[in-house]
């Protein structure tokens, strides 16, 4: 039984009498309890919007769910009003923002922010005890000191640990981490990734880790969902050979595997912009093996269970 199921989800920006502008189209994914899923794609591929649909903050960006279903352990998240979201956010779905951008509130102490998160997650909780427990979970030593500090007194890695503590305060079933280590140093990044894995192991939390770094998610996740121009193109188990031409090209363009002095593989062109999606597969214009039928009809859906692929001609991809 899946913890999370997304079926044919389309997210867009309503434009009055004109047709809404689709940002994510017919996205589908499933997640087992305790599973760690990597979500990757270039800027503008729709990965952040997909995450926002899971914490009910699409409207803050002027977007809305146009069609499709999101089910979290029996709860319908696609037709949830703001009032109901307050019981879901923090309690059933936790969210870790990008470190550099939406960090902690600069004018509140860590203790005050953690208190807010704890009471949102578990009304009536013993706040001081739970705060120490959470800081211990995210491996912050000297919790008494940190609780009295303001965000600017902490390093980027420590701040992100605090954000993770806030996100898991309500022991959510699902944690969504949107590029949690962007802008952090590699050693700090490695520490945060280890922490996410520890949390998954200790609390059984399912995690969606958003990144544009294929190498990173391949290292730490169980499966990887690849998005391109608003469509899900492949869901591939970690360490397995990719089958969609886009994922294959991404994998080949990995710098850490390249031989110094040899040209790197690049992907021709740019992904099509939102509002200018061509018919058929949106990768076709950048694809070496595209066939005439790739440019017809709607974007092909992903087919397959354990390893799903949207390519119409997987036998040609290699």
């Amino acid at each position: 039984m899946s913890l999370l199921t997304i079926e044919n989800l389309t997210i867009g920006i309503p434009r009055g009498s004109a047709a809404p502008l689709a940002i994510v189209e017919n996205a589908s994914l499933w997640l087992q309890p305790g599973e760690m899923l990597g979500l990757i794609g270039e800027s503008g591929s729709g990965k952040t919007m997909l995450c926002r649909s899971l914490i009910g903050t699409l409207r803050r960006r002027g977007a809305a769910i146009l069609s499709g279903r999101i089910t979290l352990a029996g709860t319908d998240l696609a037709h949830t009003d703001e009032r109901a979201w307050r019981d879901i956010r923090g309690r059933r779905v936790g969210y870790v923002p990008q470190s550099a951008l939406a960090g902690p509130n600069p004018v509140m102490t860590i203790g005050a922010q953690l208190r807010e998160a704890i009471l949102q997650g578990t009304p009536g909780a013993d706040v001081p005890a739970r705060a120490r427990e959470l800081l211990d979970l995210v491996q912050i030593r000297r919790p008494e000191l940190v609780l009295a500090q303001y965000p600017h007194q902490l390093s980027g890695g420590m701040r992100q640990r605090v954000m993770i503590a806030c996100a898991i305060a309500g022991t959510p079933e699902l944690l969504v981490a949107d590029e949690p280590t962007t802008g952090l140093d590699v050693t700090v990044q490695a520490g945060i990734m280890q922490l996410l894995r520890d949390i998954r192991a200790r609390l059984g939390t399912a995690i969606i880790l958003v990144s544009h770094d294929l190498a990173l998610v391949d290292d730490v996740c169980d499966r990887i969902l690849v998005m391109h121009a608003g469509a899900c193109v492949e869901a591939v188990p970690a360490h397995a050979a990719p089958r969609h031409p886009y994922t294959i090209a991404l994998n080949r363009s990995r710098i850490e595997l390249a031989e110094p002095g040899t040209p790197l593989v690049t992907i021709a062109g740019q992904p099509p912009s939102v509002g200018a999606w061509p018919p058929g597969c949106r990768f076709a214009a950048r694809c070496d093996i595209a066939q005439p039928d790739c440019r017809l009809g709607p974007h092909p859906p992903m087919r397959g269970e354990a390893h799903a692929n949207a390519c119409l001609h997987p036998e040609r991809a290699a």
Partner: protein
Amino acid sequence: MTAPLLSARGVSMRFGRVAAVRDAALSIEPGESIGIVGESGSGKSTLARILAGLQPPSEGEVLFRGQPVYAGGIAYPGPLRRQVQMVFQDPYGSLNPRMTALAAVAEACRFHERCSAAEATARSLDLLARMGIGPDDARKKPRLLSGGQRQRASVARALSASPALLIADEPTSAIDQSAQAQLLNLFHGLLGQGLSIILISHDLAVVRYLARRVHVMRDGEIVEAGETATVFEHPQHPYTQALIASIPGRKPKETAP
């Protein structure tokens, strides 16, 4: 051994009581690429700014083709100025949002070389084309370009001076993986044409790919330096070992049969 293009000896930089760079020494030969790696606060960007002539050091000496860079109050005086150019991390912040990529590069062309507007435009279009930006995209403003295109436009602008040395501070940090590969291929081609590149990055994979020699900085000091391949295979300093162990994805994803 050829004479170094740029060399630094005993370079230190203090901001108040903080020593951002301590007794750093390095050199780069013509056509060579070197990397400076380290974490936030390690002093690598400060050292880069000192080498680029943007920040006089508290102590020490920087020589360009044997001439002191910071002599007489002006860094890289006269004709030396154009020989060293810099590319920054944030391609959006380093391009004027109200100018097209073409206008931004043409402005730099006319700054560095006395030429007509028509000549500057032709030369800029050529530079942008070499960076993979066609004439249509060249006439777009930065917000309509992708991050990778913006960064390549910044490189075109830097190259308009026909520099001997390019100092790139985290050029790939803010762009997508496939755009990174494009930019690194461009840098690779430029090295083949005799340009020297100093690459500052916290991304060791990028440095491993592009730099022949690498300097590892921590707390303002260069703690390890050597041939990149050697340093990556046999890191000596514990800090270098920790850095290399943190690189994601050194285990190759198996390739399709």
